[in-house]
Every structure is written in structure tokens, then in C-alpha cells.
């Protein structure tokens, strides 16, 4: 992070552009490189179109033109937000993605916020009062949670709370479209994602606070007679937050793909399930569109992380000037 900021904003933007074009090229090359008819590779299997339409499409998609021309047309399409047409959904890819995105955000944003806040506070506590038994048990619990990928946690949670205890519904976002129904469906997936996020935040926050602990301003604050809790949350917390913030911005970029498998387990109709269904039915336009969207999101959040980092850390801000 620090070296990135040192090299400046221009570098971050250039790098993002390079990655963007690399990813676009990959998306362009893959369907044309794979064995089989490129038309099928582009529109996906399971679409039920006639041979006549395929021939029309071959012309329409420009597959009878030179590869360079095809590439220019493709990049132009991506830049103007035209990601193609899904013959499976009978809608444009952008429409399908927008429709599903809302639901994923409904799932991922609360989990992101809850997980980060809980992780920061517990991490700060465990780092500052390192030797207390609560801190030790928090660290052990985090190690256990950290080693369970979120979809493994989801299966366990679904089994215990929905299946055995019958406390929460098994699948979907709602039975009837009202707030209570949606809320009760969201409890388990949001908890699982929050726990997972907080475990990650915990580790970083704890390490960051441990590093801050040696600083002299803490001794100074103690000499002024402040209580340990005040020192932690008034002074140390703010300084230790920096690495967490840049990690948050980065993980915000993965918000569409992070919940992928959790959505599949809980049958939640968001981007993750969309990608899963697209994989199952070999619906390539959707796969490519989702992948491009995720990449763009990640890149934007990375630039944002760089800006936030250099803005928040006065040392780096001065260095940049």
C-alpha cells in the first residue's frame, strides 16, 4: 500500500487501465480460442436458437471479420456499457446484472458494515490488552473461523439453525414480499458473512494495534493519567485504523463476488447465484459480463483505497507533495 501511494495516483490509475485491458482481452480471446463454434462459445449453450439465427448471429457478431476489427468492436461495446445479449434470459446482460445486483448489495452491505465494526472493536481490544484471557480466546476463535471458508460456515449454520432448530427459513430472499419476511430470510446469511468479515478485520486490526503499542504517545497519555480504555479508543484506535481502511476499500471491491458461494448455499437470487446458474447452463455472456463488472468494481475500489490512504496518512500526503 505504502509503496503504491509513493508512486502516486497516476501510477494507480495506469495500473488499473492495464488490468482492465488485460481482462477485456482475456474475455475476448477465451471464447474464440476454445474448441467448438465461437458463436456457441459467445452466446452460450442451452439457448435453443435455430441454425438460421446462428448464421445471422455469426454475421451480426462480426465473426466473419478480421480478428483486429472484432477486438475494436468488442472494446467499444464494453466501454459504452454494451455487454451483449443473453439468449437464455432474453434480456441484455446489463439488465440482468442490474436486476440481481440490488439483492447482492442488500446481503453484502450490511454484512460488510457489521463485520468491519465488530472486527475493528474486538481486534483493537485483543491487540491492546494482549495478555487478557478474553483476548486470547478471541484470537483462538478467530483462527478457527478464519480457517472455515464462508460457504463451509454457511452449510453449518444452515444445518444447525434452519434444519435442526427450525429458527430460520431454508432458502430464498422472501416468501411474501414484505419487510419481516425478507428480514427473517436475511439473518443467517448476513450473520455468516459478518462473522467471516469480522474475523478478517480482527486479524488486521489486532496486528495494527500491536504495532502502535510501542509508540511514545501512549506513554505520554498514560502520564497524563488517562485510563487504558480511553487511550485505546481515543488515541490508538484512530491511528491503527489506517491499514484496516485500505483493506476495507479493497474488500468492498469484492462485494459482488465475495458472497458468491454463500448465495448458492442459501439459494439467494443475487449475483452469486446468477454466476452459478450461468456456469451450470454454460451461459457465457452472463459469465463474461459478471466478470467484467466485478473487475471494474475491484479496480475502482483499489483506486479509492489508494486515495483514501494517502489522504488519511499525513506522512504520505506530505511525501506526495
Amino acid at each position, binding site marked *: 500500500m505504502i509503496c503504491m501511494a509513493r508512486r502516486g495516483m497516476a501510477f494507480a490509475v495506469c495500473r488499473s487501465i492495464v488490468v482492465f485491458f488485460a481482462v477485456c482481452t482475456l474475455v475476448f480471446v477465451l471464447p474464440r480460442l476454445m474448441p467448438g463454434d465461437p458463436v456457441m462459445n459467445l452466446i452460450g449453450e442451452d439457448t435453443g436458437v435455430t441454425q438460421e439465427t446462428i448464421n445471422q448471429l455469426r454475421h451480426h457478431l462480426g465473426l466473419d471479420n478480421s480478428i483486429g476489427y472484432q477486438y475494436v468492436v468488442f472494446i467499444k461495446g464494453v466501454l459504452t456499457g454494451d455487454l451483449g445479449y443473453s439468449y437464455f434470459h432474453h434480456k441484455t446482460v446489463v439488465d440482468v446484472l442490474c436486476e440481481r445486483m440490488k439483492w447482492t448489495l442488500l446481503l453484502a452491505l450490511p454484512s460488510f458494515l457489521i463485520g468491519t465494526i465488530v472486527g475493528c472493536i474486538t481486534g483493537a481490544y485483543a491487540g491492546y490488552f494482549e495478555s487478557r484471557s478474553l483476548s486470547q480466546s478471541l484470537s483462538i476463535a478467530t483462527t478457527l473461523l478464519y480457517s472455515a*471458508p464462508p460457504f463451509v460456515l454457511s452449510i453449518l449454520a444452515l444445518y444447525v439453525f434452519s434444519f435442526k432448530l427450525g429458527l430460520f427459513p431454508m432458502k430464498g430472499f422472501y416468501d411474501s414480499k414484505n419487510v419481516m419476511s425478507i428480514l427473517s430470510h436475511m439473518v443467517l446469511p448476513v450473520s455468516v458473512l459478518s462473522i467471516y468479515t469480522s474475523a478478517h478485520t480482527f486479524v488486521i486490526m489486532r496486528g495494527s494495534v500491536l504495532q502502535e503499542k510501542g509508540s511514545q504517545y501512549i506513554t505520554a497519555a498514560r502520564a497524563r493519567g488517562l485510563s487504558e480504555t480511553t487511550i485505546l479508543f481515543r488515541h490508538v484506535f484512530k491511528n491503527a485504523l489506517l491499514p484496516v481502511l485500505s483493506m476495507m476499500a479493497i474488500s468492498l471491491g469484492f462485494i459482488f463476488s465475495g458472497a458468491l458461494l454463500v448465495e448458492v448455499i442459501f439459494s439467494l437470487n443475487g449475483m452469486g447465484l446468477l454466476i452459478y446458474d450461468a456456469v451450470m447452463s454454460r451461459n457465457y455472456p452472463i459469465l463474461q459480463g459478471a466478470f467484467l463488472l466485478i473487475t471494474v468494481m475491484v479496480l475502482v475500489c483499489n483506486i479509492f483505497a489508494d486515495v483514501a490512504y494517502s489522504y488519511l496518512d499525513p506522512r504520505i500526503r506530505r511525501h506526495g507533495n
Partner: protein
Amino acid sequence: MNFRNYELVIGLSLVLFFVSCAILSPYIAPYGENERFEPYGHPSLSHPLGTNDIGNDILSLLMYSCRVSVVVGFCASAIAVGIGLVVGLLAGYFGGYVDEMLMCVTDTVMILPKLPLIILIGAYTGGSIRTIIIVIGLLWWTSTARIIRPKVMQLREMEYISASRMLGFGSREVLLHEILPNILFILVSKYMLTAASALISEVSLSFLGLGDPSWSSWGLMIHMAFTRGGFVNRLWTWVLSPPICIMLFILGLMLLARAFERRELSAMAEVMV
């Protein structure tokens, strides 16, 4: 005996357990991979964990599935840590333009969305085990490079390195015989962590049905348990045993990684004195 020793002991035994399961699965598994019995069987004496929808013994399947996890985890991690080591060594030791260029590449690879990328490639290529290993190896090396580089920079400034350089040893000699032995612990630690991460990716892939179809794997078992009625028929051993195996294996790898990281810290402290 304190917590640190527990980490090494528990971690090592968990990892060794799964590795030996993988190697010995054809000999110790109670039944063959494709042997069929009564489908949807509940746990019984002859089938301690029950049977699945086509009547395979779950316990035997679990053991056979270790192979993919171990092979993908350790092979992909070997490639990734290998690349990361070379990049980190060169960038840290030579500095200057070499460093700038290598770190530029590292930062670029680092921000690629890895899992979606693997899913996309898997969907097109059909995901043979070799493809999965190579793709994971080529994408997962950045964190190793970023950890090795500052270590090498730190070591490069030390007196015994300047001494051996003054004695006329070439860069290759210094890198291989003076610097490499001092970063071995951190390398092993990173190897275990990367293996855990590769394992998660493989499980996710095969859970999506994009794994190698000719190998049974934990991800595929979860996929089957979900789509073919493990939940509905209350066959909890079928549904829960693969996730628990995954958790334990990853936990073992992470504990080992931590134990080696602690070794590294104390070894580093000795060198610095």
C-alpha cells in the same frame, strides 16, 4: 508446553493425517471409489457415514477426495511460492529498476479478481486438474513476493552479506547460500498458507461443478449432497462431513504456518543481534 507448541503439534498431526489419507486411500478405504450399495443409507456398522444417492460409501469417498485437495493444494502452492520467491529475491536484492518493474507486475497481478477469473477459465476449459493447478499457481504468488522482498532487503544490508560480497562471491552465490537459508522459515509458513488458499479455491470450483470430473473431491461431494437430496433426506453425515474435513485440513495448515512464522520471528531476532 505452551500454546505455541500446541500449534506445531496439532497442525502437523492434522496435515499428516490428511496427507497419509490421500496417499493410502486405495489401501485403507473400506470400499472402492465406484462400489455401489443401497443408496441414501443412514450411518450403520458397515457404512459408518452412510451412503450417497448412487450408493457410494461416504467414508471411502471422503478418503479418496483427500487426493485432489492434497495434490492441488501442495502443487499449486509450490508453483506460487516458487514464483513469489524468485520475484521477491530479485526485487529485494537488486533493488532499483529491477525492483520497480517486478513490484509493478506484482501489484498488477494482485488486484485481479482471482476466484471469478478461475471460474471463467474453468467454465471455458472444463477444468482439468492440471489447468486448475497452473492457474492457481500463476495467480497466487503475489503475497509471497511481497513478504520475501522486505526480508531480503533487510538481510542485504547486513555485514555478513557485504563480507561475502567483498570476498568475491557472485550474486547467485550470495542469494542461494547466504540469503535463502535465512528466509526458509517464512517460506515454509507462506507455503502452508498458500496451500490452504489453493485448497479453498479448488473446493469452491468443484462445488460449482467446475472441478476435474474424473476425480472425486470434497467440493463435488458438497455439490452432490446439495443438489441430490442430502439435506431433504436428513443424511447429515453426507452433508456435513466434507465441510468438516475442509475446515480441519485448513486449520492444520494455518496452525503450521503460524508455528513457522513464530520460528522465523525468533530466528530473525537472533540474526539481528
